[in-house]
C-alpha cells in the first residue's frame, strides 16, 4: 500500500511507518507563535520549570496580530515576548515586519517534508511548499519549546482533484472559497486536505499558499500540495538530498473528489460563516463601507499587482475605505518598486503597515454596528472584524478591489 504525502512526512518525522489513524510522536522542524498566542505559550513553558528551549534556532516569534500595540496591556505582553526572545536567543519578527504566515515561507523556515507547528490555526498555509504544518494551542506549543516533539494522530486525507483551467479574473481564492462552500465548515474535520490536478499545477506558490491557508475553514488539520518545479522555483534552490513529496498512486484516501473548474465564477463567502459561499453575480446589490486587501490569505505582491492593475486611472468610491496591508516588508518594498503602491495611493487606498490588519477585529479598521466589509481575509464569523452586527464578505483581491471602486460588491470581470 502506498502512502499519502502526509503519511510520508510523518513516517520520516517519527522514524517509523505512519499510517492514517496511528498516533505518532514526531520531530518538529520549526515552531512559531505570535502576539495572540505566544504569551500563553511562554507562560506554559515557564510553568514546566524549563530554563532553555530545545533549540533556539527552531523557535520563531512574531509580533503581527496587533502591531504596533494599541494598548498598555498588550504592550506589556509584547515586552514579555521580546524579553523571552532575548533571553533564549530566539529570532523575533517585530512590529511592521509582516504576517507570520508570509514570513515563515518567505524567510526560508519552510521546506518540503518539514513538520512545522504554529500557535495559529492558519499554520496550515505551509502545505503549499509540501510541508506538514498545523495549528496548535499554546500548551502544545510549549511542549514543543521544551522537547522539539509532539504527538499527532496521522490524518486521513481528502484529495481534491481540480481539473480544467481558471477563467480570467478567477483566482485561487475563488477556488478555495468554492471548495469550502461545497465541503462545509466541518466537512474535513481532522483530515488532511490535499489539493491536486491541473488547476493546482498551474498555480504559483502564492496561489497555493492562499488555497492551503483556508484548509482549516473546512475543518482540515492541514492543507497540502505535491512538491514540483514550482515549489523549488519559489524556494530558489533544491538542497542536496531534498526530496519531492508526492502521494503514491496507490495511496489510500478517505475520499477523492473531482471538480472541473473551467466555468468557476468569482465567489464570495457571505456572513457569517465561511461556507456560506455564492457566486458574486448571485448576491444582489451589497453596499460596502470598507474593502480590505490584506492578511495571510491574500496580501502578496501578486495580489497587490492585481489590485494596482484594476485601480489604475480610477478612484475608490466615495464613502468607501480601501485598506491595503502588504503581508511583509519585502512585499511592501517589491510593490513599491514596481509602482503598485503609488498607483493604489493615487486611487485613494490607505496603505497600512505590514501585519494582520483588521482581520481579527483588533485594530486598523474595526467595523461599527451594521457596517459591511468585503475582505481578502479568511473568516467572516459574527464579530470577527468588529461589532457583533457588522458583516464581512470574503472574496478575492480582484473582487475586493473592484468593489472598492464601485462601492458595492462587484464581479471583477465587469470592471
Amino acid at each position, binding site marked *: 500500500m502506498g502512502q499519502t504525502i502526509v503519511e510520508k512526512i510523518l513516517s520520516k518525522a517519527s522514524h517509523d511507518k505512519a499510517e492514517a489513524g496511528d*498516533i505518532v*510522536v514526531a520531530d518538529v522542524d520549526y515552531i512559531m507563535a505570535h*502576539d*495572540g*498566542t505566544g*504569551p*500563553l505559550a511562554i*507562560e*506554559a513553558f515557564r*510553568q*514546566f*520549570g524549563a530554563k532553555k528551549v530545545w533549540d533556539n534556532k527552531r523557535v520563531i516569534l512574531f509580533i503581527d*496580530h*496587533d502591531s504596533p500595540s494599541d*494598548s498598555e*496591556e*498588550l504592550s506589556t*505582553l509584547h515586552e514579555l515576548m521580546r524579553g523571552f526572545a532575548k533571553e533564549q536567543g530566539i529570532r523575533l519578527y517585530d512590529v511592521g515586519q509582516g504576517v507570520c504566515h508570509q514570513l515563515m515561507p518567505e524567510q526560508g523556515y519552510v521546506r518540503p517534508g518539514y513538520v512545522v507547528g*504554529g*500557535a*495559529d*490555526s492558519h*499554520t496550515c498555509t505551509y502545505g503549499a511548499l509540501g510541508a506538514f504544518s498545523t*495549528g*496548535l*494551542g*499554546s*500548551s*502544545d506549543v*510549549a*511542549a514543543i519549546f*521544551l*522537547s522539539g516533539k509532539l*504527538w499527532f494522530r496521522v490524518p486521513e486525507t481528502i484529495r481534491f482533484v481540480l481539473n480544467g483551467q481558471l477563467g480570467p479574473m478567477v483566482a485561487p481564492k475563488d477556488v478555495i472559497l468554492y471548495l469550502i462552500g461545497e465541503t462545509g*465548515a*466541518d466537512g474535513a*474535520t*481532522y483530515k488532511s486536505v490535499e489539493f491536486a490536478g491541473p488547476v493546482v499545477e498551474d498555480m504559483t506558490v502564492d496561489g497555493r499558499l492562499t488555497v492551503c491557508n483556508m484548509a482549516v475553514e473546512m*475543518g482540515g*488539520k492541514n492543507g497540502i500540495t505535491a512538491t514540483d518545479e514550482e515549489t523549488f522555483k519559489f524556494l530558489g534552490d533544491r538542497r542536496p538530498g531534498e526530496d519531492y513529496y508526492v502521494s503514491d498512486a496507490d495511496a489510500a484516501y478517505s475520499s477523492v473528489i473531482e471538480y472541473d473548474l473551467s466555468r468557476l465564477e468569482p465567489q464570495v463567502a457571505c456572513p457569517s*460563516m465561511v461556507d456560506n459561499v455564492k457566486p458574486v453575480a448571485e448576491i444582489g446589490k451589497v453596499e460596502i463601507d470598507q474593502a480590505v486587501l490584506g492578511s495571510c490569505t491574500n496580501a502578496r505582491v501578486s495580489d497587490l499587482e492585481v489590485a494596482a492593475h484594476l485601480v489604475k486611472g480610477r478612484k475608490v468610491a466615495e464613502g468607501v475605505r480601501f485598506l491595503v496591508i502588504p503581508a511583509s516588508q519585502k512585499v511592501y518594498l517589491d510593490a513599491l518598486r514596481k509602482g503598485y503602491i503609488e498607483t493604489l495611493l493615487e486611487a485613494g487606498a490607505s496603505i497600512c503597515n505590514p501585519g494582520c490588519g483588521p482581520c*481579527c*477585529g*483588533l485594530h486598523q479598521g474595526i467595523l461599527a454596528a451594521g457596517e459591511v466589509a468585503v475582505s481578502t481575509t479568511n*473568516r467572516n*464569523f*459574527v*464579530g*470577527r472584524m468588529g461589532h*457583533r452586527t457588522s458583516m464581512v464578505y470574503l472574496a478575492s483581491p480582484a473582487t475586493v478591489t473592484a468593489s472598492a471602486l464601485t462601492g458595492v460588491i462587484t464581479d471583477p470581470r465587469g470592471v
Partner: protein
Amino acid sequence: MVDRLVSRSLHFFGDNISTDLIIPGKYKFKTTDAKELAQHAMEGADPEFSKKAREGDVIVGGENFGCGSSREQAPLALVGLGIKAVMAKSFARIFYRNALNLGLPVIENRQAVEDLVEGDRLEIDFRKGNITNIRLNKSYPIKPLPPFLLEMLEADGLVAFYKKYGRLPWQKAG
C-alpha cells in the same frame, strides 16, 4: 479532573460556535489570566453568559464547536468560569485538543446532545466511559481517549501532568 461528575445547569448553544464567540479576539490581547478571560466567556454568543454560569455547569454545543482560531484562551476562559465539561455533537480539532490540554473534558456524542432538554442533568463517568441523562435514565458511551490522553486529563492537563510526573504524557515513564 474528577472521575465522575453530576452537572449543575446545562447551557445550550447552536452549531458552529467559533472561538471568536467563545472569547472575542480583543480580550486575548489584554491578558493571559483565566479569571479575567472568564468575565468575557461566550460573550460573542451570549453577552450575559459569565453572569449566568456557575461552577460545575456544563456547556452543550451543536456541530463543529470551537471552530476557527487556535486560541487556547477559549477553553481557558471556560475553565476560569468553572465550567466542568463541554459536550457537543462534534468539535473542531484544535479546540478539542486545547481543552484536553487544560484538563477540560470534551465529550462528543450526537445522540446524547439531541436527547437533552432544558433542565436536564447529566452524570458523567470518565472511568466507565459513559454519560447518563438522569431524566431519561439513558446512558451513552464516551469515545475512549488514548490512554496517555486520559492520564493527562486525569492530571488536569498538560502542564499539570508535567509538574506531577516530570515528563510529557506521551513520553515513556522512567
